[in-house]
């Protein structure tokens, strides 16, 4: 019996750090509407700073806690810099730019931490005076765990006082509901946003610091905690601090007991819990529905139009260039272009989901990797011929998308995004943990095309035909009635429903189609490389796709292609440097700040005035350009 009690207390202890970090994420999102992906990095920094400060000033009982607070303050300072330098310029940009910018911050922090603290895992210092062990009915338990158990409710109480008993807190809560109105009452929003961001960062830092004696500090903490934080925030309900606390406790208990029952399946258990809660209560335990009421003016979005004459010429020229490319360049570049083609198809499928469907997925790599694994497993276990595997892979990925999409389309906006991320993480952990079948981290090797297609030249043309064919198919769907209906659903679910569109079904079909196309790209990938590893399904890979879409520009249909090319080029150039993540992160942040429309979007914007890049509008639809000319 006492074993379970200690296990229970240990669960509560690990809930504290998770709660601190997640509450910060929740508060930041509530007010600024920024999903801060770098929040995991702030947590990690908290641990590293804590490690250093405890060594420098941490002598004695008071010094230790003082050092942890100092670590939280230091992370708050980092948050301040991130907010002032990057996010402040992006509040009016589409949400995605903020996501990508914070993703850039993740990369930067990873390399800075590597540079400052080295690659070795750091063993956490012990808290003076709390190093012992207490016996609970005979079962030993670290005393520090008791301190951790107390820390969660203490911080919860402090936050409650802050938000309910101070004017600042009242203004923050008001801004969570209606930012513009708060400004109209004379409150400086920028100041409020900065304050909230710093507070949230400090909480993440404190969370990372207080778990030091238990978990130490290492470079994998950022992504490690990120998925868990998302689950906590989504399960608890966006913006609800008490909800975050309950969810953190629930998840941590599930983890500690799950480990007794099903040691390999803890990650999966957590996400299953989340899926169940979200299907029953789409806004989380204590969350409230998103108020669609008073958003700040989003500005007019340019309507998607079929290609105009100049643009068609341009596409034809690019295609012609791709056709004669083998004559112009050597094998090395041909392989590089195959990579670009594969990624372009992958990115285009995500772009379709995002721009036409209005469904931002954070876990699209599940289907890319899903397709790759489907093909690889078929070849490995069923000796499926290459041609058939190539055909079945998108079906497999589509099936996976059907299952995942069935849950996800019940949600919208940021909940949808987080649920896709969660499911992608489940898919990844299954592939990673189920090593009997998937070979786990060692991957599946020796997945090559048939003899006729194994030469680089033939495979290049095959990839060209499939990738370009896939992209044209996606384009065709965008301008088909199905695509119009999907766009209507994106722009106003209520109005679309009122004219008889089955919204959930429409979105599910789009999700499955996008998943299948990503799977096709994944199958191409596995046959071009001959192997596949769980990385292809991981969160960073999903971000790569988002990055490509954004590099190219969300509003431009050729964006993903440009984005994939730019990404591949950047990646290839930077990977040779020791601190390539830092450079990539800085590049991402710079691109987001300089080209908020993406590369292709910017080109279209500047060239569109002189060239006919879009077809003339038919009918009486009044769009941006006519209004400007009128």
């Amino acid at each position, binding site marked *: 019996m006492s074993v379970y009690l200690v296990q229970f207390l240990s669960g509560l202890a690990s809930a504290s750090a998770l709660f601190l970090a997640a509450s910060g994420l929740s508060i930041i999102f509530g007010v600024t509407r920024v999903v801060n992906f770098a929040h995991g990095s702030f947590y990690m920094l908290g641990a590293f700073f804590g490690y250093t400060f405890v060594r420098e000033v941490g002598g004695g009982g008071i010094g230790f806690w003082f050092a942890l607070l100092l670590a939280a303050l230091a992370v708050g300072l980092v948050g301040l810099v991130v907010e002032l330098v990057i996010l402040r310029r992006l509040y009016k940009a589409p949400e995605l730019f903020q996501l990508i910018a914070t993703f850039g911050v993740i990369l930067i922090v990873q390399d800075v931490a590597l540079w400052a603290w080295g690659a070795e895992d750091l063993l956490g210092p012990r808290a003076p005076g709390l190093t012992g062990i207490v016996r609970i009915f005979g079962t030993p338990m670290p005393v520090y765990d008791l301190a951790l158990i107390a820390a969660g409710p203490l911080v919860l109480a402090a936050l409650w006082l802050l938000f309910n008993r101070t004017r600042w807190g*009242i203004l923050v809560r008001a801004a969570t509901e209606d930012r*513009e*109105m708060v400004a*109209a*009452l004379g409150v400086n929003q920028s100041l409020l946003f900065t304050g909230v961001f710093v507070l949230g960062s400090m909480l993440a830092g404190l969370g990372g610091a207080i778990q030091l004696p238990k978990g130490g500090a290492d470079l994998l903490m950022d992504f490690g905690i990120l998925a868990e934080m998302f689950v906590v925030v989504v399960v608890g309900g966006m913006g609800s601090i008490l909800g975050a606390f309950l969810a953190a406790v629930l998840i941590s208990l599930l983890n500690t007991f799950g480990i007794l029952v099903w040691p390999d399946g803890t990650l999966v258990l957590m996400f299953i819990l989340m899926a169940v809660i979200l299907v029953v209560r789409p806004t989380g335990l204590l969350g409230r529905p998103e108020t669609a*009421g008073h958003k700040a003016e989003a500005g007019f979005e340019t309507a998607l139009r079929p290609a105009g004459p100049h643009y068609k010429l341009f596409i034809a020229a690019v295609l012609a260039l791709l056709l004669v490319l083998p004559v112009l360049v050597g094998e090395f570049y041909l392989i590089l272009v195959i990579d670009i083609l594969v990624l372009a198809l992958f990115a285009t499928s995500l772009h379709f989901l995002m721009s036409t469907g209005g469904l931002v997925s954070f876990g699209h790599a599940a289907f890319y990797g899903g397709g790759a694994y489907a093909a690889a497993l078929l070849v490995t276990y069923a000796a499926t011929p290459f041609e058939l595997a190539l055909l079945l892979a998108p079906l497999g990925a589509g099936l996976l998308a059907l299952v995942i999409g069935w849950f996800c389309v019940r949600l919208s906006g940021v909940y949808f995004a987080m649920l896709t991320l969660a499911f992608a993480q489940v898919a990844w952990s299954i592939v990673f943990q189920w090593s009997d079948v998937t070979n786990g981290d060692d991957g599946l090797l020796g997945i090559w095309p048939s003899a006729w297609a194994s030469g680089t030249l033939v495979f290049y043309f095959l990839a060209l035909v499939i990738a370009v064919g896939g992209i044209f198919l996606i384009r065709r769907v965008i301008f088909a009635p199905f695509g119009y209906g999907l766009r209507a659903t994106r722009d106003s679910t209520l109005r679309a429903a009122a004219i008889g569109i089955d919204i959930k079904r429409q979105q599910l079909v789009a999700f499955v189609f996008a998943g299948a196309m990503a799977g096709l790209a994944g199958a191409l990938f596995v046959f071009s490389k001959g192997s596949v590893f769980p990385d292809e399904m991981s969160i960073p890979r999903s971000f790569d796709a988002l990055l490509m879409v954004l590099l190219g520009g969300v509003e431009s249909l050729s964006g993903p292609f440009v984005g994939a090319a730019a990404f591949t080029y950047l990646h290839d150039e930077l990977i040779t440097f020791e601190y390539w993540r830092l450079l990539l992160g800085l590049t991402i942040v710079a691109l987001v700040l300089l080209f908020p429309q993406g590369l292709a979007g910017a080109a279209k914007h500047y060239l569109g005035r002189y060239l006919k890049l879009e077809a003339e509008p038919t009918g009486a639809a009044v769009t941006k350009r006519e209004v400007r000319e009128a």
Partner: protein
Amino acid sequence: MLSVEKIHSYYGQAHILTDVSLALSTGEVVVLIGRNGAGKSTTIKSIMGMVKVTEGDISFDGEALRGEPTHRIARRGIGYVPEERRVFTRLTVQENLEAGQQPPREGAPRWRFDDLFDLFPNLAEARHRLAGTLSGGEQQMLTIARTLMGNPGCILLDEPSEGLAPVVVEQIIKVIQQIKAQGLPILLSEQNLYFASLVSDRAYVIETGRIRFSGTMHELEENAEIRQQYLAV
């Protein structure tokens, strides 16, 4: 004291206001009247810096407002009561009022909690209730009270009677008259000529983003042609 001169406003690329000018002086209630979509709210939002104004001037007590961020415009003394109420539904009545609090302003009436609870007895009773649980009329009262907590030098009141029962509209008329009695000028936007005539001294008629008529309330009531052309439904 509040003057709007020849402003042009845009929503994104759509040109909404053309050459709109108006003025509001101490102690008067001025109505901006027009049909749905005529540009009333856009005019008010332009003054508040919530809509892009590309040409023209806006000033209050001689200080230029155009191009300033919204919160600074509010701090200069422009009190804004939005249409559709926009109370903070998850805050209590008391907290809503606290959110509106700003330091007292020279030359403007000063409002304390007790003054407002005198003016709006319903709110005093509902002090600790969540604003989201109030009736539409009570929410409208709360938005007015919340704006008064900022001790403004003038008030922009955007369609306060919209969607409210006649008995509530009567209360709002009383409140407007009491605020006016304190010497606080009010720019009222309204569709209903009768409501406007009960509280206003002067009127501007707006239609498709242009001011079509300006004069005293009496002149507007006498001018059947203007009424027919721009206000008849």
